[in-house]
């Protein structure tokens, strides 16, 4: 139960001698929902890329334990425009050599979970922004990953759609026991979604605080209106500001 899914040890990254990430050590138990909160451009997306293995670290290690293939959701939906929705969702399975009937069946299941049961035959350009992001989520989940990495996935969406997708993600997490790392610059989004928030300073990213969110596991629309939610938002805002102040 508590074997870590992810262990970062003295992880750093610089681009051309310019440090982006100061030495970072952090462990993540299985089933955690962690948000990486920091100002725009602070290097938290780079951290996510290091964890995914899309970028080599300058020093230190990011060990994924028994999770050889994490799933990744990008800032933009990034669907292949020449493929149908179903075929886009099935792509990761296709790349791993799963047979057509099986991968399409599994893609259809995940699409239904996302409330897009009837959208399989559509082309990406026929979808709204929110639907595209649901398809992108479905594509990430189709391989049944243990670790889901999300890089500001809802930042381009309107607020209501963002709330709804947040609720959807939270529900998915509760039901599945997935481990999630969610990059965001929105304090309220981090507080609503996650169990634990790692707060980073401005570039180069330095870990300022790594604290649990004092909210119940079961959350819904009403949670955003409760006093405890407001209190936690204010608290993490204070932590975030302490990292901004250090630079000014």
């Amino acid at each position: 139960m508590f074997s870590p899914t992810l262990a970062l040890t003295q992880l750093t990254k610089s681009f051309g001698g310019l440090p982006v990430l100061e030495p970072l050590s952090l462990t993540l138990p299985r089933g955690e929902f962690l948000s990486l909160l920091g100002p725009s451009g602070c290097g938290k997306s780079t951290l996510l890329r290091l964890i995914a293995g899309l970028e080599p670290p300058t020093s230190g290690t990011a060990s994924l334990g028994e999770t050889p293939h994490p799933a990744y959701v990008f800032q933009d939906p990034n669907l292949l425009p020449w493929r149908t929705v179903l075929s886009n969702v099935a792509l990761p399975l296709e790349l791993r050599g799963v047979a057509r009937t099986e991968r399409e069946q599994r893609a259809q299941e995940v699409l239904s979970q996302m409330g897009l049961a009837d959208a399989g035959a559509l082309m990406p350009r026929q979808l709204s922004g929110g639907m595209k992001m649901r398809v992108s989520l479905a594509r990430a989940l189709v391989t049944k990953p243990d670790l889901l990495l999300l890089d500001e996935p809802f930042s381009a969406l309107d607020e209501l759609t963002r709330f709804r997708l947040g609720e959807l993600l939270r529900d998915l997490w509760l039901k599945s026991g997935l481990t999630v790392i969610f990059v965001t610059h929105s304090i309220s989004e981090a507080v609503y979604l996650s169990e634990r928030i790692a707060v980073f300073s401005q570039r180069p990213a330095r870990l300022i605080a790594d604290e649990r969110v004092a909210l119940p596991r079961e959350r819904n629309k009403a949670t955003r209106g409760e006093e405890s939610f407001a209190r936690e938002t204010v608290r993490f805002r204070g932590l975030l500001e302490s990292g901004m102040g250090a630079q000014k």
Partner: protein
Amino acid sequence: MKNAFTRFLLPLAPLVLGTAVLEFLTRREILPAYLFPAPSRILDALTGEGAAALWTAAGETGLASAAGFIGSLVVGTLVGAVLASSRLIERTFSPYAVFFQTVPIIAIAPLLVIWFGYGLPTVIISAWIVSVFPMIAATLAGIRGTEPALRDLFRLYEAPRSVTLRKLLIPSALPSILTGARIAAGLAVIGAIVGEFIAGGGLGGMIDTARTQQRLDLVFAAILLSALLGWIFFASVNLASRILLRHWHAAELTTERN
């Protein structure tokens, strides 16, 4: 009705008017026949007794252009894909690709005759040389323009290079490749005709001979046919493009759903 008028009849008006004026000027011998043949004589060259030779020549040129163009499609896409696979390979070989674009075909056509003789092979190679560069450049630009996040996605699922090429890079570069093909198609016809000027045969050979015999009606008829060839090539690529991209580029359905 009004739409049909503006689309088809209006563009025809200058042609009809211009032809009428030229016919008048040449019949009255205001415009001497050794400078400009009467439109009726050009039409006669295209449809009259000697027309069969002209159309056969057009067929020859069409065939040579098509062969050169298809060669460019295949070689250009392959070379473009190889150049796109690494910056090092691109730096090493792209100057040689640029050579094909910058060297005037008319200057190397005589060399081609020495190497490949008078006839079809020289003409095909000439068509190929002028049309291969746009294909290389378009493929290279298309592949380089692939969304980096999509490359990351394929990397994340450990797709082999060949799979990434087939399922991501080539489809993603397709609009660019087809734009290159539109340019290459027209150039292939020009390249073939230039080749025929030197190597003989086809419309190019015909224009060259007719010119020396003061048969301006034949020259004009051949020019019209080469323009027709170029248009057929261009239209074919357009059609192929529309079919290949119909699902994602040509927006047939843009209904927003929520």
